[in-house]
Structure formats: structure tokens, C-alpha cells
């Protein structure tokens, strides 16, 4: 059904020059195509990673001027000039992204606005290169019909590239980073790096649109690339439907054609335009396409699970004689208050090590240090021979430490199977160009990922949920999915932050069985922060007790249970 829709659309678009020679229609059609190319790229940045840019007109300008200067000044073939324009815009995109994506929200908006204004200013001032306010004339241009067809072909291509990208490890990484940055980092993804890639691709798309704009008109000037233009890009994307494949096309169509229809109203035109935008933000929060299509289709359907796939294919601990994890004299203070002081713990390569203590004892703080979210003020953490302390979370995850969170941090927009696939792929996202082109190797890998995640979900009893959005999972299953996803990274050490919180007695019994099975079948070492004493006493091999940020006891469950200091900490001083 969907495919037929696209075919009819393509026939209409490419048949237009046959049906009419009216230059006005063709020009408006080409303008829709140009806007579609930019917004398709912006969709990767805004729709997938959730970052906003108000400076993409700057990248369009760079593409347009590079194309113009290379053809008019250097006599390059237009196609070569266009490719150079894309590369140039993407290259500037990397630099801008490196600076811009260190910040987020309004700060990011500001950096991108500033970039756009600087580009516009340079275009006006650097008269020798850019022709100043007058711009560049006599750019070699094809006939309007040719230009129209080329632009529509590139726009179709742009939408196709974005669709492929969405259905690849990169697409999932983009959405994962938007959905929960901490969870993405805990699986080995650097949110900063992933966003830079998204920003760079979107800059390249804008560069392509700019180059085509120059060739379509044969003339460019700085006026076409102001802040208003950047705002228009964002509005078109949001109006069409952010994060959907067809959204950029729909938004571009309406926001290009509508002002043309309103030209007879002259003075009221922009007021109506503003009113329309405002009402659309009210009534179409998911955009035109989002409103029509309901929920977005899943990235991939989980493959039927091969029956005998055992979930416990995590690498067996290599029988190291010493401790796997060594925490030595770790301390950390927040605003002068010591949350942890002189904490030393050793965790062997197998078994379950529980960390307990009253509220505020510093248990979760310790987990955050072990997973790289906090950097300890003193002391060291080592995993095998590698230092953990001082590394960012994604680097710690790559060492083989996985974790869950007190409130399950799922990637709500991704399906349950995709959540697991993010864990399996981890940092290994593959070649981004291959992902956009839908290369055979990428597709084969997708099938493997689908099979693997299907198998892991089947083993965890979540197979029926595989293709549902993770947000739809009931509470108990959310935590289970989070553990499956963490295990999918094949960690050597798994950190569980209160996995029993909010579970009923039956679910806790299941959890006990699952964790014991994991331990007995060569799973990773587990550090368990937990309040639920039945659970802790039932499955822990060793227990460390924290109170006021210090270790007050350590030993087997039996020893800890009888330890006078522990009893005092939990029940208050007895007499």
C-alpha cells in the first residue's frame, strides 16, 4: 500500500514536465524539491537525535557559493562542483558540530544562529570571492525542465538515504541518544560523536540543496540564506512530521506552495502564514505525516528465534586468579559533603556481589563511579588491568561494564527488539555511508542483529513484545528488557541498580531464578545494589555494607547478617 503511494507520487512528480511547460509550476516544484533535500537532512539531526539547528541556511549558502565559485571561477563541471559543495558543507559541518554539540537546548540554538549570521556576514563582506551583496551571476544552468528533474531525483534520493539510515545501527543509535543519553552511553555509544555524525550528514544535505539552488537560478546572493531561511527549514520539518520519512516532503510541499497560493492577499499573507503555523503546532503535534500515519513503522521486524539459542553466550570469565574489579580508596564529595570516603571493594570475575546500606549510604553513587558517570575525587577503580576512573561512561562500557538504572532507561521510541539490537551493536555502528546506501553487507548484518535480538528476547520471555515500542512494556518487563539489553553488550561485569524495586513477590522470585541462572551458566560478574533483603540474602556470594559513604562491613550473607555494625546501621543504636 505504502509502496504504491510512493510510485504514484513519483509518476506524478516526474510526469509534470510532460503535462505542462508552465515554467511557474516547474519552478515551484523544483523549490519544493530543494526544501525537501534540506529538511530530509535536518530530519536526521532534529527528528532522530533531537537536536535543533537554526543555522542550516549557512550550510546551504556554503554549498551554493562553493558550486558557483567552482563553476564560474574555476571552470569545473557542475556535477563535480556539486559534489565538492556537499563535501565542503559537510566538512564545515564537522567543525561547527564539534563546537556546537558541546552544548544543548537554547545554547545549541545560539551557536547555530551565530554560525548562520557569520556566514551571511562573510558573504556580504568578502566581496572579492563572493561578489558581496550583489552575489554571483551567470552560473551555468540547465533548462528549467532539466533542473526540475535533477532536483526531484536528488530529493527522492535524499529521502531514500534517510530511510536506509534509519533502518541501520546508526539510525537506532541516533534515536537512542535522543531517548536516553545516559542509557546510550552505558551501552558504549558516545552521544557527542553520534550527534556530530548526524549534524555532519545534515550539513552535507543542506550543501547539496544549496548547490542545486545555485544551478537552478543561475544567480545567488546572500539574501537567500538568512536566519529566516533557517527558521523556515525547521518549520517545514516540524509541520511535515519530525522523525518520519515522508514528513520533510509533506512539510516542504505545504510551506512552499501555500505562500504562493496566498500571494493575492499581499499584506495579510505572512500573518496567515504565522496563524497556520501556530494552529498546526496545536493540532498536528506530530506533523502532517505523523497525524496521518499514526505510529512510525518499526525499524526491523524481529526474526523468528532459532529454538535452541542459549542466552548465556557471554564470554566465560577467563578464570583470572585475582579480582576482576578493584576499587581502591575511592572518595567523592558533592558541594563539600562527602558522599563516599575511602571505599575499597574487590569483586571476583564470577558470582554476585551485593552492595547494601541504608538510604543515602552512597550505593548508587558508587555505581555511578564504577560506570564512569562520576569521576571519583580520590582513589582508583580498575577492571583487570584497565583503569576505569577518569574514563567517560561510553569508554567504561567498552571495557566490558554494563549497567541498569534505578528507573529503567529504555529507548521508548525504538521497538523492544531494537533496544536489544542497540546493545548488541554497541559502538560497532559500521560505515555510515554504507548504511545510507543500504549496502548488502549492512543488510546482512541487520538480519543477523534481528536474529540475535530475537533469540535474546525469546530466552527472556519477551518475544511477543519484540515489535512493540519499548514504551508500551509493562513495568516489570521494562526492567527485564533493560537487563537483556545490558547483557547483549556481552559485559564482563554487570551493575544492577535496585532491580527489584517495584516488583511483586512473584516477579522477585523470577528475578532470583534468572540471576542465579546467569551466574551458574558462566554469565558476567554481577554487582547488585538492592534494598530487598530476601533477594540479597538469597543470591549474593558476598555483601559489602555501606553507611554514610563508608564500608562498615563485608562478608558472606551469614556474616553480614550477624555483624553488629550492620544491625546498628539498619535499626539504629541499640541502647
Amino acid at each position, binding site marked *: 500500500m505504502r509502496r504504491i503511494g510512493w510510485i504514484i507520487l513519483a509518476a506524478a512528480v516526474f510526469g509534470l514536465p510532460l503535462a505542462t511547460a508552465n515554467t511557474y509550476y516547474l519552478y515551484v516544484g523544483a523549490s519544493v524539491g530543494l526544501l525537501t533535500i534540506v529538511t530530509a537532512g535536518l530530519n536526521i539531526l532534529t527528528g532522530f537525535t533531537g537536536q*535543533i539547528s537554526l543555522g542550516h541556511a549557512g550550510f546551504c549558502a556554503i554549498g551554493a557559493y562553493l558550486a558557483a565559485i567552482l563553476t564560474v571561477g574555476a571552470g569545473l563541471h557542475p556535477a563535480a562542483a556539486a559534489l565538492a559543495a556537499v563535501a565542503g558543507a559537510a566538512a564545515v559541518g564537522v567543525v561547527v558540530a564539534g*563546537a556546537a554539540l*558541546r*552544548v544543548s537546548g*537554547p*545554547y545549541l*540554538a*545560539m*551557536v547555530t*544562529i*551565530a*554560525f548562520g*549570521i*557569520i556566514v551571511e*556576514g*562573510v558573504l*556580504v*563582506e568578502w566581496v572579492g570571492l563572493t561578489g558581496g551583496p550583489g552575489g554571483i551571476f551567470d552560473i551555468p544552468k540547465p533548462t528549467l525542465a532539466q533542473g526540475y528533474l535533477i532536483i526531484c531525483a536528488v530529493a527522492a534520493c535524499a529521502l531514500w538515504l534517510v530511510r536506509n539510515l534509519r533502518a541501520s545501527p546508526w539510525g537506532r543509535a541516533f534515536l537512542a541518544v535522543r531517548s536516553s543519553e*545516559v542509557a546510550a552511553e552505558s551501552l558504549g555509544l558516545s552521544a557527542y560523536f553520534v550527534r556530530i555524525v548526524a549534524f555532519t550528514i545534515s550539513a552535507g544535505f543542506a550543501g547539496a540543496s544549496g548547490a542545486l539552488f545555485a544551478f537552478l537560478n543561475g544567480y545567488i546572493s546572500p539574501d537567500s540564506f538568512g*536566519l529566516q531561511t533557517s*527558521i523556515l527549514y*525547521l*518549520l517545514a520539518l*516540524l509541520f511535515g512530521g519530525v522523525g518520519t520519512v515522508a514528513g520533510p516532503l509533506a512539510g516542504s510541499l505545504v510551506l512552499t506552495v501555500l505562500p504562493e497560493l496566498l500571494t493575492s492577499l499581499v*499584506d*495579510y499573507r*505572512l*500573518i496567515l*502564514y*504565522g*496563524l497556520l*503555523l*501556530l494552529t498546526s*503546532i*496545536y493540532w498536528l*503535534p506530530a506533523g502532517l505525516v505523523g497525524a496521518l500515519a499514526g505510529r512510525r513503522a518499526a525499524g526491523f521486524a524481529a526474526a523468528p528465534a532459532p529454538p535452541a539459542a542459549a542466552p548465556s553466550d557471554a564470554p566465560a570469565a577467563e578464570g583470572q586468579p585475582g579480582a576482576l574489579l578493584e576499587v581502591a580508596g575511592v572518595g567523592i564529595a*558533592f558541594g563539600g559533603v562527602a558522599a563516599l570516603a575511602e571505599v575499597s571493594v574487590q569483586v571476583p570475575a564470577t558470582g554476585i556481589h551485593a552492595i547494601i546500606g541504608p538510604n543515602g549510604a552512597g550505593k*548508587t553513587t558508587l555505581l*555511578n563511579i564504577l560506570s564512569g*558517570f562520576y569521576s571519583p575525587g580520590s582513589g582508583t577503580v580498575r577492571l583487570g588491568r584497565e583503569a576505569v576512573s577518569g574514563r567517560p561512561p561510553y569508554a567504561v562500557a567498552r571495557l566490558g561494564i554494563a549497567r541498569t*538504572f534505578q528507573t529503567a532507561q529504555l529507548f521508548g521510541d525504538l521497538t523492544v527488539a531494537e533496544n536489544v539490537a542497540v546493545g548488541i551493536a554497541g559502538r560497532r555502528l559500521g560505515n555510515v555511508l554504507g548504511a545510507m546506501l543500504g549496502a548488502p553487507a549492512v543488510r546482512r548484518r541487520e538480519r543477523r542483529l534481528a536474529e540475535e535480538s530475537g533469540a535474546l528476547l525469546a530466552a527472556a520471555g519477551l518475544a511477543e513484545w519484540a515489535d512493540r515500542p519499548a514504551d508500551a512494556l509493562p513495568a516489570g518487563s521494562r526492567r527485564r528488557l533493560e537487563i537483556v539489553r545490558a547483557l547483549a553488550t556481552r559485559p564482563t561485569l554487570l551493575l544492577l541498580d535496585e532491580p527489584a524495586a517495584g516488583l511483586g513477590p512473584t516477579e522477585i522470585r523470577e528475578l532470583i531464578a534468572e540471576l542465579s541462572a546467569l551466574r551458574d551458566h558462566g554469565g558476567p560478574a554481577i554487582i547488585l545494589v538492592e534494598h530487598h533483603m530476601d533477594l540479597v540474602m538469597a543470591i549474593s556470594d558476598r555483601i559489602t555494607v555501606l553507611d554514610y559513604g563508608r564500608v562498615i562491613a563485608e562478608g558472606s550473607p551469614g556474616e553480614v547478617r550477624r555483624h553488629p555494625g550492620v544491625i546498628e546501621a539498619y535499626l539504629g543504636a541499640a541502647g
Partner: protein
Amino acid sequence: MLVQLLVTGLALGSMYGLVALGYHITWVTSRTMNFAQGTAVMAGAVVAYGCHVGLGWPLLPSLAVTLAALAAYGIAIERIAVYPFFRTASPAWLLSTIACGIIAENTAMLLFGKDARAFPSALTQQPILVGGAGFYPQELLIPVVGLCLVAGVQYFYHRTSYGKQLKAVAWNAEAASLMGIHIPRAVMAAYALSAVLAAVAGVLLAPILNVAATMGTIIGLKAFAVAIIGGLESAPGIIVAGLAYGLVESLVAGYLSTGAREIVGFALVILVLIIRPWGLLGSRPTRRV
């Protein structure tokens, strides 16, 4: 020359700071802001022009009507464009405020016309000569009024009961709400105050810049830059950043060229954010895990 540039820079800079304070006030109470804050500057100037020049009213009643109208404008923006998206993760408020800005600017264009008009200063048009440099009294008045208002706003937030309530909302909305503070009303008040500050800037700048429907855009943008490099959460940072931005801009325009003004100004904004990602006096938010 230098003294003149410094005075001009301080005058403009204090106005950027004043408008930027409007971003700060709504940001801390609601984590949203009016991206079209520049239209409030413009609206202030246009309404004042309409009353004072158009209807021929004396200055003070014109001012009173202007400030009341702009408080209503701020509340309208909050009700229409912000409240429906309050504390949602989506950037919808950003786009809806931009949409409101487009509507406001073009309505003003329709009513006021496309041309810029001169706004007579209440003060003498005779430049005061000091050591060979001439100053318009208006230029000297602007930073004084601007800084007094900033001081007034600070006093309001730190010393008055209602100001402290608003500040409590900024710190922790949930706790403030439990203490009986009416959050939606606090947000409305913040938007009203924010628009009023912008209107004051518009009225003060009108005699220098002339009144036009499009006058607000670039002021709003520079004020946003000032709010960001000062640190959205830090009022003192914003004032310092505003004055610094005005001075840099004025000096670049005077000694380099007016064309380089925007390039240098916004390049510095990026540079500041690379070195201090949360603004000059802002503090990095701690990461919640």
C-alpha cells in the same frame, strides 16, 4: 572618538542586557522563553509612538499605556504559545513563539507601515559637549535607566516576598508548588515582566534607532546571544555580557567597519561557548543519572 564609542556601546549594551534579562526571567521560572522577544521591543516602541506621536498624548500617559499593553502582550504570548507546551520535552514552544513573532511583526507592519519613523526624544536634541566629544542626552540616559531597572529587578527578586516566590519556582518548581505558590500565575508574571522590560528598551531606543516594524529582530537576537554567553541562569552574568557585547560591537563598528560588527560579535559568542559552555557566570548543571 573613543569616549563616544564607549558611551554608545554602553547605551546599546545596557539595552541588550535589559532585553536579555527578559529571557532569563522566563527561562528560570518555566524553562521556556519567547524566541520572538524582539517583537516585544518593537511593540513597545510602536505603541509608544502611536500614543505619543500618533494620538499626541503627553509622554507619561503614553508610557503607562505602553507598559500595560506590553504586560498584556507578554501574558498573551504565554497563554497562546507557551502554556500549552509547558514543561514538555518538545521544542514546540520555540516554534510557537516564533510563529507568534511572525504574526506580531506583520500585524505591526500592516498597522504601522513599512517605513521607519523618527521618535522625538523628550530630552534636548542639542548634543552635550564633553572634552571635544558630543553626546546626545538620550544616549546618556539609556544606560542609567537600564542599570536602574536591572537593579530594580534584582531587588524585586531578592528582597520582596513575591520576587522570592518566583525565585523559589526557579529553584525547584515542585517544592514551590507544594509550598502553595501558584506556578502558572508565576510563569504568567514572568512573561509579563519580560515583555515590559523589552518594551522599556524599545521606548528608550526609539529616538536613536527610529521606529519600524522590523526593528526588534536584530535586537532580540543580540539580546539572546547576550543571555546565552552570560549564562541563562545568571542575571549578573547577563548584565556583564550585555555591556561587554555593546562595547565590543561599538568598538568594532568604529575602528573596523559596520560590516564586521556582526561577524566579530557572533564569532565571539561561539568562542565564549567553546571555552565556557554554560556561559560566563553560568554553572554547569550536574548530570542526573
